[in-house]
């Protein structure tokens, strides 16, 4: 009896301790000024001119001359600008009184130093035509900077506003006048200052007290690294973290998102459509090189079922590769809905006859295709299984092969695939940067398009498009390119993806930036955050 009493007493003590801990926590929560954000990845190297760091972290510390907003390009470190009539000379009037957080003044000399460092590392920025287009850049006076281009490159302002590489880092951080081999610190002009970073553990960003713009509402953001998704969910339930934010299953898969949404204990948010999710069909492989097969596949895949079954209705069905809401892409291209009978008829007409084994064949070639996906993304597997079952109905066998990310990327370069999962870069990269990347042989898009009759024309037109000064001609060129790709059926558009966020109800001001890679921390605050 005494033993039972002892055990009960111990249990009560433990519960009391636990309750006390909860009380302490709620008192602390009443005055919270630090937000904890969980990410599966460390911030790594956030040199704004390189690509090995997390973009959301780069965006917190470093600022561009102009910024992309839902309303278009707006001033940032440049207050205003003029563009010469021939579209080649951009003169920026810089914001006065701005300093880097190490005290170095932000002026035209600092901008030129940054731009020179970017241009000096040209091969690293091959994906971005803008770097190749820079002829020279000059300091006009302390607060006036001039950028001279070789051609009137139309996406100049949009690309200057991207998270990388055109962001400003303090001249004191340069090593031998360059940034391509590393920097001595991460000092920018942005609303946040990186004050502490423990590799693979956490990074602490504190509010920049001398920020020229609106002060962040929180005093600090703690970026915690948690590589496992389940751990992130449990930490959210425990209240150790306040925000999970991400796109395309990198932070949250749809099941977890829906479970949390149903639970009702957390606030959940979904952004507007931001990027395009599609299946890439390789026009350079025995079965899919046949345009009739590619066109039949457009009708064979039940996109609505994928959106409802895999994506739980959180995304909208895509009729065209790029959403009509994206600039230059509202072209009224014909939608191809789910119609397996039509798909079968098209295959039949093209000579792909159904065999006794339920498989179609033509000239001894069986209709067997392979879809490769990145095995680290569980969502892609489920999506592939839906496509597999749809193709089976029209007599095509699809093999699903999950590969490690690097092997998956290697395969893109070699073009050894019939089908691959594809996600566009989203706004503000779409459509110009996305189309621009089609010309790079290392990309799956290039390899899939190589089999198209007019691939050479396509690449040439994209190159011309980027430097076409006339808006009307540019529109016509976009129409021609996107119509040709649509007609060739190299992509099966599936849906327009959205960024998702789950956060504690106490955290307010959570929203989305223009790009899926940015997290607008500076607008977030807690209900009881003291006014600043």
């Amino acid at each position, binding site marked *: 009896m005494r033993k039972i009493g002892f055990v009960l007493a111990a249990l009560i003590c433990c519960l009391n301790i636990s309750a006390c801990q909860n009380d302490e926590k709620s008192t602390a929560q009443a005055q919270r000024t630090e937000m904890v954000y969980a990410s599966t990845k460390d911030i790594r190297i956030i040199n704004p001119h390189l690509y090995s760091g997390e973009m959301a972290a780069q965006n917190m510390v470093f600022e561009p001359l102009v910024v992309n907003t839902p309303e278009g390009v707006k001033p940032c470190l440049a207050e205003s600008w003029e563009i010469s009539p021939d579209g080649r000379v951009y003169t920026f009037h810089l914001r006065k009184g701005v300093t880097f957080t190490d005290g170095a003044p932000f002026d035209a000399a600092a901008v030129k130093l940054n731009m020179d460092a970017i241009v000096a590392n040209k091969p690293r920025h*091959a994906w971005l035509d803008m770097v190749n287009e820079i002829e020279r850049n000059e300091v006009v006076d302390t607060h006036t900077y001039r950028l001279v281009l070789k051609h009137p490159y139309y996406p100049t302002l949009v690309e200057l506003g991207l998270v990388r590489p055109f962001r400003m880092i303090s001249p004191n951080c340069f090593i031998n006048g360059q940034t391509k081999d590393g920097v001595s610190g991460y000092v920018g002009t942005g609303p946040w200052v990186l004050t502490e970073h423990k590799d693979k553990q956490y990074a602490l960003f504190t509010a920049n007290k001398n920020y020229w713009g609106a002060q962040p509402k929180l005093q600090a953001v703690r970026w*915690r690294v948690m590589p496992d998704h389940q751990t992130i969910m449990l930490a959210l339930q425990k209240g150790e973290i306040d925000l999970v934010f991400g796109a395309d299953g990198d932070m949250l898969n749809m099941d977890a998102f829906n479970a949390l949404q149903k639970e009702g204990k957390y606030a959940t948010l979904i952004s507007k459509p931001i990027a395009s999710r599609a299946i890439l069909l390789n026009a350079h492989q025995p079965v899919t090189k046949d345009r009739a097969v590619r066109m039949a596949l457009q009708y064979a895949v039940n996109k609505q079922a994928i959106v409802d079954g895999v994506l739980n209705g959180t995304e909208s069905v895509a009729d065209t590769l790029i959403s009509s809401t994206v600039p230059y892409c509202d072209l009224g291209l014909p939608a191809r809905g789910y119609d397996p009978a039509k798909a079968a008829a098209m295959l039949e007409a093209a000579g792909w006859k159904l065999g006794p084994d339920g498989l179609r064949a033509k000239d001894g070639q069986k209709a067997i295709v392979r879809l490769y996906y990145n095995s680290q993304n569980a969502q892609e597997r489920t999506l592939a299984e839906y496509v597999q079952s749809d193709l089976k109905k029209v007599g095509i066998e699809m093999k699903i092969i999950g590969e490690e990310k690097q092997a998956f990327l*290697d395969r893109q370069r070699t073009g050894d695939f019939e089908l691959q999962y594809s996600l566009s870069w989203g706004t503000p990269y779409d459509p110009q940067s996305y189309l621009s990347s089609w010309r790079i042989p290392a990309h799956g898009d290039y390899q899939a398009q190589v089999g198209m009759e007019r691939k050479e024309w396509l690449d040439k037109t994209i190159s011309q498009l980027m430097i076409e000064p006339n808006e009307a001609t540019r529109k016509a060129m976009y129409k021609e390119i996107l119509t040709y790709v649509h007609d060739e059926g190299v992509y099966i558009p599936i849906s327009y993806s959205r960024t998702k966020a789950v956060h504690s109800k106490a955290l307010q001001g959570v929203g989305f930036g223009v790009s899926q890679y940015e997290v607008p921390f500076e607008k977030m605050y807690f209900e009881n955050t003291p006014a600043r």
Partner: protein
Amino acid sequence: MKAYILRRLLLTIPLLLGISFVSFVIIQLSPSDPAEVAVRVNEIVPTDEVLALTREQLGLNKPFMTRYADWMCAVAQGDLGRRYVDNKPVAQELARALPPTLWLALTATLFMAVCSVGMAFLCAMYEGRTVDYLLRSFIFLGTATPGFWAGLLLMWLFSVKLNWLPTSGMQGASSVILPAATLSLSYISTYARLLRNSMVLNKQKPSVLYARARGLTRGMIWRHIFRNSLQSTLTGLGMSLPKLMAGTFVVETIFAWPGLGWLCVTAIFNRDFPVIQAYVLLMAVMFVGCNLLVDILCAVIDPRLRARGQA
């Protein structure tokens, strides 16, 4: 004895050389082009120009044996190369990741020793009774439960529900408890079973009957049984530390523990070959070193082994 130790030490050199060569060859056989990997992990488009530049920078245009010799010479001087991801020295990264893993592995060893000895004692003392069956069922469950599942269950119970411990990360002494418990779980089951069986066998020996007849106390008799049952368990325990350190992949990933396991997992996903090569070499050195230490200890205890080694 000195000659025995010297001979064993000398034998480890060709063994380590062999391991280093095999690890180097295996990585070279990977279908991925290291230059392309190095470029891709930095999210740079692998154009021909960039690839050529990277190949030159990494010395990949040199012949295979030259590259191996260069690597070995550098390793001998403590230079394990640089990571593709951020160009940081690999030796520095391993040195940074080693202490957390050592802390985790040593705590897990402590848990393992205390729990397996305790459970084995209880099972042997109450052999064939409810306590024995219950504990053996628990041991069976421990062996059958996958590490990641056990980790998440422990996290859910002790962290989310009871709020006693942090879910993950390395924040203070308490944060090591859950990952160490997860890591030690399967080892506890193995050693508890091993020790229990050994103790059950030993308690039936005539020497125990004689001890009882001599009127020795219960405690003294059990101490005697325990000491005689330790031999096989100790040999296994000696090799457990490197095994624990090499087996931290899953636990470190689940519990966001910034150690060697996580470093290696990230390197594998990124195909960061210099890190993988260095990790394989480090683990080989640890296994060979521990094996050597156990052999020497055994030889110190049992002179017959030394004689056998000389034969």
